[in-house]
């Protein structure tokens, strides 16, 4: 038994209204003021604010309710229970692996805690190119301030782990500025296990903050329950049909609706990919063919280095140092910029990420304690040749993202592999392996530079992953440009709002959680005001 108090189990004992799975059967019909689809970043913030405004709220989550007592820092437990598709979600052509949460708290339960406000360059693009006049720094600042206070977001002042310190040292050697990342943690144990669910409840995810607050205010949480489709009529969502699902997302009773939720208002916050999919299944009006389009991933490429000293990339806070040098030194709508960070390293991720097989693969794995990895997040959505992907439905109604990796994107990936290798050699790496099927460990920057310049930058040869899914229900100043208005309200469906990362009309250009918190905070305060006439504030 864990020595840590489990706020979820305590809440259940206090009588929280949780149904679905082991928590009890769903009634055939549920009536409420607002039904929220999802329980991640946008859903959690919205649920807390709407319950504070006195509204009767129902939260619908496809994944299970797991909490600190269930989090044992094991990939073998975390991936199947907390992630979409057992953490093996892929784009349609299988060229990009996507890590996305599927549990109460959504991706905030399993993310690596990196917290950035939406970059000013991104906001300027939204204002100037897309007409989103209210999305400027000053207008958003109070909403970010509130979210940062609520979620204890502050720069990580503890010494970075060696994996991150190497980024700092390498960048410094090259005269590149690198800074400390802010994290949403309170009393963090510096374990490095954030991706498997925080066992100490230090991470201020939605699981331990806003969702408990909403439940304490009387909200109802449905788990292992998938929002299947809206019943649309007369320009309004009349109801939401939901199915009960098994741990692997298969319906418990195929073809059967487990519950129908009738609400005055609906908020879609199931995350990019899944939110547009609900609207696609609902055959929602889409007069300008924008639904599910422009879905962004911040495609990620990686570079693995071997150091003389032990790195132990599994230990200590992940992603505590970053550099935006390669974003800030070029125009946002030019060749792709990228952000560099140093991720946590664990056995399954290591074995699946390192290319090849047999003795060469074994040799790389044997150097795990000395391995340092950098990743580059490519900023997609700002150039016509980086238009993102399209969410589609498979024949069984499940969602899949078609994301073509264009030559333009892959040219950015090549520059990113070069930049990472140069930093790694500057930080003292003995060898560097750009993660690509055609590469080998190189022992000097000169050798790496010429090898990377010659690599065929093709999908399925270059390892590309993502943990940031954005867009697909873009907000826009005019009906012809977006799925929802600047206030989150759907252009064609009067009582439906979208409050998650699928709102973003481009990628964010930074780890998106705080962008979602801040923007959902503003949208949910507006929605509470419209529905109740009451002003509420997060915090």
């Amino acid at each position, binding site marked *: 038994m864990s020595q840590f108090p489990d706020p979820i189990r305590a809440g259940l004992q206090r009588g929280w209204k949780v149904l679905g799975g082991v928590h009890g059967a769903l009634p055939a019909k549920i009536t409420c003021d607002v039904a929220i689809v999802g329980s991640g970043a946008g859903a959690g913030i919205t649920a807390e604010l709407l319950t504070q405004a006195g509204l009767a709220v129902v939260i619908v989550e496809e994944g299970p309710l797991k909490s600190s007592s269930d989090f044992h820092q094991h990939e073998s437990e975390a991936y199947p229970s907390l992630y979409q598709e057992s953490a093996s979600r892929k784009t349609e052509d299988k060229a990009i692996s996507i890590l996305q949460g599927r549990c109460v708290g959504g991706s905030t339960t399993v993310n690596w805690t990196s917290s950035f406000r939406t970059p000013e360059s991104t906001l300027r693009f939204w204002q100037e190119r897309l007409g989103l006049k209210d999305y400027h720094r000053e207008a958003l600042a109070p909403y970010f301030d509130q979210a940062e206070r609520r979620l204890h977001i502050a720069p990580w002042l503890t010494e970075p782990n060696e994996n991150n310190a190497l980024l700092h040292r390498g960048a410094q050697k090259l005269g590149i500025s690198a800074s400390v990342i802010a994290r949403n943690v309170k009393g963090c144990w510096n374990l490095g296990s954030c991706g498997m669910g925080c066992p100490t409840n230090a991470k201020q995810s939605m699981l331990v903050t806003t969702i408990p607050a909403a439940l304490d205010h009387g909200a109802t949480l449905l788990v292992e329950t998938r929002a299947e489709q809206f019943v649309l009529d007369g320009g309004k969502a009349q109801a939401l049909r939901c199915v009960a699902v098994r741990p692997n997302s*298969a319906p418990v009773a195929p073809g059967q609706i487990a519950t129908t939720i009738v609400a005055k208002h609906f908020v879609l916050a199931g995350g990019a990919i899944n939110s547009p999919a609900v609207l696609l299944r609902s055959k929602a009006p889409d007069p300008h063919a924008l639904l599910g389009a422009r879905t962004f991933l911040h495609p990620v490429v990686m570079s693995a280095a071997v150091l003389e000293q032990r790195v132990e990339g599994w230990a200590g806070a992940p992603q505590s140092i970053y550099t935006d040098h390669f974003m800030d030194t070029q125009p946002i709508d030019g060749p792709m910029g990228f952000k560099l960070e140093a991720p946590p390293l664990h*056995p399954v991720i290591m074995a699946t990420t390192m290319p090849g097989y047999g003795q060469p693969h074994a040799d790389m*794995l044997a150097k795990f304690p000395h391995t340092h990895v950098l990743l580059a997040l490519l900023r997609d959505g700002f150039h016509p040749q980086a238009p993102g992907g399209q969410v589609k439905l498979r024949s069984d109604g499940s969602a899949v993202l078609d994301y073509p990796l264009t030559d333009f994107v892959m040219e950015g990936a090549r520059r990113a592999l070069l930049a990472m290798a140069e930093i790694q050699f500057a930080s003292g790496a003995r060898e560097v392996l750009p993660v690509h099927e055609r590469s080998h460990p190189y022992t000097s920057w000169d050798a790496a530079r010429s090898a990377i310049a010659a690599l065929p930058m093709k999908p399925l040869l270059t390892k590309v992953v993502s943990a940031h899914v954005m867009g697909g229900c873009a907000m826009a100043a005019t009906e012809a440009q977006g799925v929802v208005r600047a206030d989150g309200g759907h252009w064609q469906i009067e009582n439906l709002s979208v409050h998650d990362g699928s709102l973003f009309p481009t990628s964010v250009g930074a780890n998106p959680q705080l962008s979602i918190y801040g923007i959902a905070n503003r949208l949910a305060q507006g929605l509470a005001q419209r529905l109740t006439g009451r002003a509420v504030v997060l915090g």
Partner: protein
Amino acid sequence: MQRRSLLKLGLVSGAVLALAGGAAVLLRPGLEQGRLSASARGLFASLGRAILQGTLPVDAQARSRALAGMVERIDVLTANLPPAVQAELSQLLGLLCTTPGRLGLAGLAPAWADASEAQVQAALEGMRFSSLALRQQAYQALHEIVGGAYMSDESSWAALGYPGPLPL
């Protein structure tokens, strides 16, 4: 069009493998009720020997035990995948377990159980660098499933020098 692949055969590529309960979904032939068929178990044992050569224990008995454990974990993984992904994986495994599929997709002449590590590695190399997206996808899926399943259990961590999580 290459990237759409020639057959409509998608593949799971489990960054992950794991242990959780699962649903029973009727699928043939690679998966039966969401679990590995007998021939798919043999396929993964053969792939494990080739992909993990150098990482597996040297002692023959220990190696057999390690591979058997990996196959068990793959079986648990498949049960936990969503139905659409199970269906794709089932097609791939089913195809690879037929003689024409093994020849056409993997380019391997002997049966999986009879092939040497070097023969399986040569087949993997052909898929990895194939000009057909489908064969590349198959390689990526098998590589990730095998590597992920093997390293998901603490019995394999010594090969990585990974001490396991800090006890709390």
